[in-house]
């Protein structure tokens, strides 16, 4: 309950700030959308940083480090420190200058002018809005999940199916309404102020959390030393031989168990007699959870009962045990080679498989503050539904392979941060700057801010892999990475800090949501209604009302969508980053290449969209894990297929590279053979240096 109070106080403070900033509102649409170009260097830095660092800043960074190790810093953080500032410097300053000069509020207004094409707006609008929507959804859904996690057990009798915490749909609704209120009343100024406040909150709380967690783990050196002993792969970017060896032993045991379960439960090839079962139990010594099945498996394997299984049956067994969808029809090679972990992961996990845990562990699930057995407190508290799902995953699914990062994947990930150059909400933030000099601080401080937030979070993430409670690992296998930070805070600190950190996580989420809501509302108003309705048809006050109306609609629609299909949205988010990156050549060439033509721009956008759709389709709509574009091997270029084992001599690249190179090539080639822009247009956008 303390956590809920802290979150409530934080949200009230935020609302107060939004309403206070609205008192400075000058009553014009330009003030509402661009804060009348009045934002100075510090506010610009904080609001841009808060906007670019989504929920990923605290939760994702520690979660990804937990899953992938320290390599995530180089892939996602230090690369962003270079590329984001590059975009602010090369694009931000120039777009701000043109925006001030010609009165732009949105990207599309700029492109319509620069490319002498009204229709480019019709092409870009659905693409840009369509790619922002998944971000909004991720923010809204994440906020509900975070609030639910931290409040579990807060209610005595209600919300049992949500572990007696605030239901995610209710938490998400509260956050959506809070953001809506301060964006509605405060507009861009309220958003900038709230972002600055929230950025400070999540940065300070991130550092505080780091120091408390490191102290609880026995100090920074001891925490890292444990990782070196138990999970050395997390300290490097390749898989450590010791981890691979341990994994191979566990994987072999798991495969035998999968084969036994398949033979006895799915194919009904044999059943152990009572006598055999008793013998199996007597011969098996360890008594860990689920030991009986393991004992039966060892007995069956030892007595050659599994040797009749065909390769195809074994492959079926592994996918069934790992709750993955069996391919229909089976591929030709199905009876020739057995699946390894890499190829197995490319088969989609069955929706809702974990829900079986509720049935299996029905007797253990209950209010997390009640004892499992009142007569024997040593058995601990009742399980939450989350814990039941966790135990199910840890005992049924295949052990986790020690991940490594390929050189080429690491290199080609550099294309992803280019996406900030085409974020419509960032464009709008750039235009709020009071002067071009206001950009200097964000350009310089952005990489440092990234380091301040990410280095502690990455360390906490890798420490989590080897942290123990009462001698047992704090996190079982297959623990959801994004829940690592919140779980560590909850189990290692008091409810006050837990509530404060949750406020910090929500701050990171809301500081992106607000800008995106405002931006999409602005785009509907400026690029559609005002543009096609005619500028003189609406008074400035009417435009202001329209913007506010659209913001309400966008918040409502986003919240509505957040109630449905959730799992795929997170995967889609990464693809949207790539989509924005593939449009980077367009904005760069618009500012720096006089020969860019209208047709070249269309070619760029159409190629980017076509490649995005094609690759998304080839990845089975993001269902193939670790989907890459591959060069070498039997073919010059290929895409990761289901069940494909990629040889080490094949160059694996992120799909974003092909999208960016493809859209750039199309833009250049078409621009070179189509009519150049009018001289008066070039004069406007490329004035002679005085």
């Amino acid at each position, binding site marked *: 309950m303390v956590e809920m109070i802290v979150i409530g106080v934080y949200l009230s403070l935020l609302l107060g700030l939004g309403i206070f900033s609205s008192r400075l509102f000058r009553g014009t649409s330009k003030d509402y959308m661009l804060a*009348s170009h009045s934002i100075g260097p510090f506010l610009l830095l904080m609001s841009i940083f808060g906007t670019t660092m989504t929920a990923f800043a605290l939760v994702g960074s520690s979660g990804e480090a937990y899953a992938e190790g320290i390599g995530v810093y180089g892939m996602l953080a*230090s690369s962003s420190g270079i590329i984001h500032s590059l975009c602010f410097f090369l694009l931000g*300053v120039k777009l*701000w200058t043109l925006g001030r000069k010609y*009165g732009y509020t949105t990207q599309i207004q700029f492109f319509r002018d620069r490319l002498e094409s009204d229709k480019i707006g019709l092409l870009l609008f659905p693409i840009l809005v369509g790619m922002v929507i998944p971000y909004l959804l991720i923010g809204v859904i994440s906020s509900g999940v975070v609030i639910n996690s931290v409040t579990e057990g807060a209610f005595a009798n209600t919300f049992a199916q949500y572990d007696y915490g605030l239901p995610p749909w209710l938490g998400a609704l509260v956050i959506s309404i809070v953001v809506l209120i301060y964006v509605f009343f405060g507009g861009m100024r309220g958003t900038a102020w709230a972002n600055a406040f929230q950025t400070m909150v999540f940065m300070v709380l991130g550092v505080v959390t780091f120091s408390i967690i490191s102290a609880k783990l026995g100090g*920074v050196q001891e925490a890292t030393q444990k990782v070196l002993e138990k999970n050395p792969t997390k300290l*490097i970017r390749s898989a450590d031989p010791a981890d691979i060896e341990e994994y191979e032993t566990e994987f072999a045991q798991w495969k035998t168990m999968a084969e036994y379960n398949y033979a006895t439960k799915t194919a009904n090839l044999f059943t152990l007699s009572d006598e055999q079962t008793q013998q199996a139990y007597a011969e098996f010594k360890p008594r860990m959870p689920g030991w009986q099945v393991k004992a039966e498996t060892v007995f069956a394997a030892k007595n050659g009962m599994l040797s009749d299984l065909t390769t195809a049956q074994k492959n079926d067994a592994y996918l069934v045990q790992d709750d993955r969808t069996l391919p229909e029809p089976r591929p030709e090679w199905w009876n020739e080679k057995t699946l390894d972990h890499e190829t197995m992961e490319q088969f989609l996990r069955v929706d809702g498989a974990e829900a079986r845990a509720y049935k299996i562990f029905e007797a253990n699930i209950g209010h997390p503050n009640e004892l499992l057995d009142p007569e024997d407190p040593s058995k601990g508290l009742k399980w939450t539904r989350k814990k039941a799902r966790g135990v199910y995953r840890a005992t049924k699914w295949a052990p986790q392979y020690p991940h490594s990062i390929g050189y080429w994947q690491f290199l080609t990930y550099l294309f992803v941060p280019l996406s900030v150059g085409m974020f419509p909400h960032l464009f709008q933030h750039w235009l709020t700057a009071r002067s071009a000099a206001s950009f200097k601080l964000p350009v310089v401080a952005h990489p*440092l801010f990234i*380091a301040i937030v990410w*280095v502690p979070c990455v360390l906490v993430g890798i420490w989590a892999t080897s942290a123990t409670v009462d001698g047992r690992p704090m996190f079982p296998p297959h623990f959801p990475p994004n829940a690592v930070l919140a779980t560590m805070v909850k189990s290692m600190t008091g409810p006050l800090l837990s509530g404060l950190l949750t406020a910090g996580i929500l701050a990171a989420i809301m500081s992106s949501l607000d800008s995106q809501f405002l931006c999409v509302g602005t785009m509907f108003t400026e690029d559609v209604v005002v543009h096609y309705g005619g500028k003189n048809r609406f008074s400035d006050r009417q435009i202001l009302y329209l913007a506010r109306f659209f913001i309400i609609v966008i918040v409502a629609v986003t919240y509505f969508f957040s109630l449905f299909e959730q799992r795929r949205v997170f995967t889609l988010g990464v693809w949207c980053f790539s989509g924005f990156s593939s449009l980077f050549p367009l904005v760069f060439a618009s500012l720096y290449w006089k020969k860019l033509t209208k047709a070249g721009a269309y070619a760029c956008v159409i190629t980017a969209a076509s490649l995005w759709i094609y690759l998304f389709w080839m990845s089975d709509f993001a269902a193939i894990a670790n989907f890459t574009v591959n060069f070498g091997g039997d073919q010059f270029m290929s895409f990761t297929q289901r069940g494909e084992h990629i040889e080490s001599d094949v160059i694996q690249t992120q799909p974003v590279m092909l999208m960016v190179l493809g859209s750039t090539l199309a833009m250049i080639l078409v621009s070179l053979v189509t009519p150049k822009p009018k001289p008066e247009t070039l004069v406007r956008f490329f004035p002679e240096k005085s």
Partner: protein
Amino acid sequence: MKYVVWGLVLLLIVIHQDFWYWNDKTLILGFIPIGLFYHACISVAAAFTWYLATLFCWPEELVEDAPTGPSNGEEVQHG
């Protein structure tokens, strides 16, 4: 100096691909893996490089071209 700064940006992108620390488990100060420490240093180096960029590569000619100071909220007319 302008070329030096852009050369430094290019150098940052090149040294970002630190294959030489890929398998190195050395701990700096006893707790930061060298692969993480190196990239944290890249973040600091990036900040310094961008500081140099604001000193030596700032597009003054563009900046002079735009109106300065907060606008009064009225739309600037299309030129």
